[in-house]
């Protein structure tokens, strides 16, 4: 038993406590950097991302490795990789944050509803989730993308409609175990309405899971976008995205490794940054973890 007088945490805002964590700060810095890069790409990019430069290729027509002029080298068509990465960040952020966030919201709503109500509502929702899970995601994405005109936002929507299933499954399981806990029963005896129980009492307990699935989703959605682009139904060339830079160049992995490594590292770094911030956010928002940081 903890003596209540021992645990004295100075009252602080969640943001202040978040900023005291070094790792979270590091993650936050990367996110800010990427966002700034994407937003200010037209001003900070050294070249036009689609400009196939004559001096961007060697005399034999091979891409240039990183040097003083092209800081990250050039690609197969002589375009500056750094500029393409900066512009590509716009696409990838939309996919990784918006599409993935939307998938998370859909998954959470389906999971929490099915887990709390069980019965036929839960049955129908979860069987539908299983159906979606069994269906090849790529095939579904192709079908959806074929119906609509390809554009960045349509791709984002398609990815969201494909990627929510895992989240729904996990949230469903957690909600159904939370729903049987005593404090939820206590809440019912007090006469609380169902939305209040769901969003005020159950949702905060799901945050850690949502954060983990959200950060895991960033890299998968960024790559799924690349796959769709590769198949011609995603972002149309020459518009760059981190995923399609990797896809275009993966065949030359042996001779021009920087073309795969650098965008790959960018995706991993972004996912890691979101993960670090998400983790810290989870700890900061969880009152039972207070005093341990």
């Amino acid at each position: 038993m903890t003596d209540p007088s021992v645990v004295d945490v100075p009252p602080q805002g969640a943001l202040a406590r978040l900023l005291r964590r070094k790792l979270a700060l590091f993650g936050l810095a990367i996110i800010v950097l990427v966002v700034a890069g994407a937003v200010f790409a037209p001003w900070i990019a050294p070249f036009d991302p689609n400009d196939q430069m004559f001096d961007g290729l060697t005399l034999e027509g091979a891409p240039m490795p990183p040097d003083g002029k092209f800081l990250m080298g050039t690609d197969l068509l002589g375009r500056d990789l750094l500029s393409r990465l900066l512009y590509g960040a716009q696409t990838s952020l939309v996919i990784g944050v918006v599409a993935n966030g939307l998938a998370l919201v859909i998954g959470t709503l389906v999971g929490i509803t099915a887990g709390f109500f069980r019965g036929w509502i839960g049955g129908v929702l979860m069987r539908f989730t299983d159906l979606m899970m069994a269906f090849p995601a790529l095939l579904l994405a192709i079908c959806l993308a074929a119906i609509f005109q390809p554009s960045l936002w349509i791709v984002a929507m398609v990815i969201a409609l494909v990627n929510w299933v895992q989240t729904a499954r996990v949230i469903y399981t957690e909600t159904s175990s939370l729903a049987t806990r005593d404090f939820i029963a206590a809440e019912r005896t007090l006469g609380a309405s169902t939305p209040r129980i769901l969003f005020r009492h159950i949702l905060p307990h799901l945050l850690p899971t949502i954060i983990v699935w959200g950060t895991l989703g960033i890299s998968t959605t960024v790559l799924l976008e690349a796959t769709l682009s590769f198949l011609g139904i995603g972002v149309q060339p020459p518009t760059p995205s981190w995923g399609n830079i990797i896809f275009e160049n993966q065949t030359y992995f042996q001779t021009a490794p920087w073309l795969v490594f650098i965008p790959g590292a960018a995706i991993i770094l972004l996912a890691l940054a979101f993960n670090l911030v998400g983790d810290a956010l989870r700890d900061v928002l969880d009152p039972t973890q207070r005093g341990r940081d």
Partner: protein
Amino acid sequence: MTLAEALPASGAAPAPETVLRVEGLCVSARTEQGLKPLVQDLSFDLRKGETLAIAGESGSGKSITSLAIMGLLPQPAVRVTGGSIRFGQQDLTALSESALRQVRGDRIAMIFQEPMTSLNPVMTVGAQLSEAIRAHAPVGRTEARRRAIEALRAVRLSEPERRMGQYPHELSGGMRQRVMIAMALALRPEVLIADEPTTALDVTVQREVLDLLRDLQARLGTAIILITHDMGVVAEMANRVIVMQQGRQVETASTEDIFGRPQAAYTQALLAAVPRLGQGSARAPVTGEPIARLSDVVVRYPLRGGLLGRITHNVHAVDHVSFDIRKGETFALVGESGCGKSTIAKALVGLAPHQGRIEIGGQAMQGLDPAGMKAMRRRVQMVFQDPMAALNPRMKVGELIAEPLVIHDIGDAASQRARAADLMARVGLEASHLDRYPHEFSGGQRQRICIARALALQPDLIIADESVSALDVSVQARVLDLLRALQSEFGMSYLFISHDMAVVDNISDRVAVMFLGQIVEMGTRAQIFGNPQHPYTRRLIEAVPIPDPRLKRLSRPRDASEVPSPVHRPGHEPARVILRDIGDGHLVGTSVG
């Protein structure tokens, strides 16, 4: 002491050999503020054939001591920082893990509190027993099986051969604990550590398990370290007692001395707090109008099976129960686990679908629209058994207490907060702690928070479902006092649900005894405890361990019969219990086929 009588040979011996010697044991936990001592300078000798009880409340370090002896401390976070544990020629604190494994189970065995979680649910009882035997004895499959059956027979399980093929979930709680004892004793260990062995069991089952342990000890001469918070169990089982408080040994003496002449102030306080039968003070009978009225309430849970999900069986959780709770009265429901007492509570707060009629303050619960139901919920509030589980850990205490006011839209934010502060003070907590979270409080304080939350709507009836069962005795006594004080202040009624006969005797005005979903006896506290009529009521009262070692318990013929099941096929009605008034409202049940 019963053991000495049962075991004249060892009792008469001048000084039985010491099997385990603990000297200056210190155990500490590593925290960010440095080492935090959990057990400090504990010393005792354990002699062959004796039962040494280590008694204390939660956080006293008694379970840590048992884990230290077994070498099962969660290292490296918690480790032995001083002293020695001598077992024969060896110092257990210095042994390697592999050497300890030889000792563990074979020469020192342990049984735990919760028999369901300490048995592997996917292995049959026989497989687990045989495995335990073969881990230490170089015997073949058939020999191990033979020994396993013998061990099951020794713990008086019926049909041991059949039990070998059963899984833990097919056995009742008492049977599972017997399997654990069989497993522990199959290898004839010299020392048996029993950590709260009967805490999770019903009183009548507890009685059987305690009798069994005593008989086995007399036969095998095992030394037992009994770790318990229950002074009644201590009085009945132990030869010597160590009382621990916050990791320190407060007092060590023979059982007679501890109960007869307790020296330390803490021991005296601990004994004074133990609820005893026959301590309840007589109150003037409450004759107000009924606040809650149940007539012929039936709760059944269908079990479905087969392809089409047809109802194959019904669980008769509550069967034709009728009673009234009067205004300002404390009405107690007692019975063992599965008797339906908690289901009645759930039906009363509208969490269990029921048939029959439930009236709260003259208004029937049936056919209420959601708004009416919400209004009715204001009148009946509930306090749960485990306060930690019943409080949302992510909400501040102030928010938790104000929650009912927010839900029912009473007052603005400022007045709700003021009311929460007021309620905190009412239940004996500091109003300035409103912004703390539940985990920053102790168990007893958390239960006070739950009580404050239940009070917020000024209900007519508060249901206390095993609300003090999870608390230490000294805390329990204070929470019971609080409940009484609040009742005289606000005049609400309590429905007090408990398995603990001594607590019920202390707090209630009227009592109903439940068995298998039906009430078998009902009357005033004096009638039930002074003149119990139904055999089940008598059995319950007799089974309560009495915290007085001088009282000798007659060895009764053991009732090894299984509790009948409340599961019936559709259309099949279990035997109804008809209540007959034998004078002054004392109702006694007789079964009618």
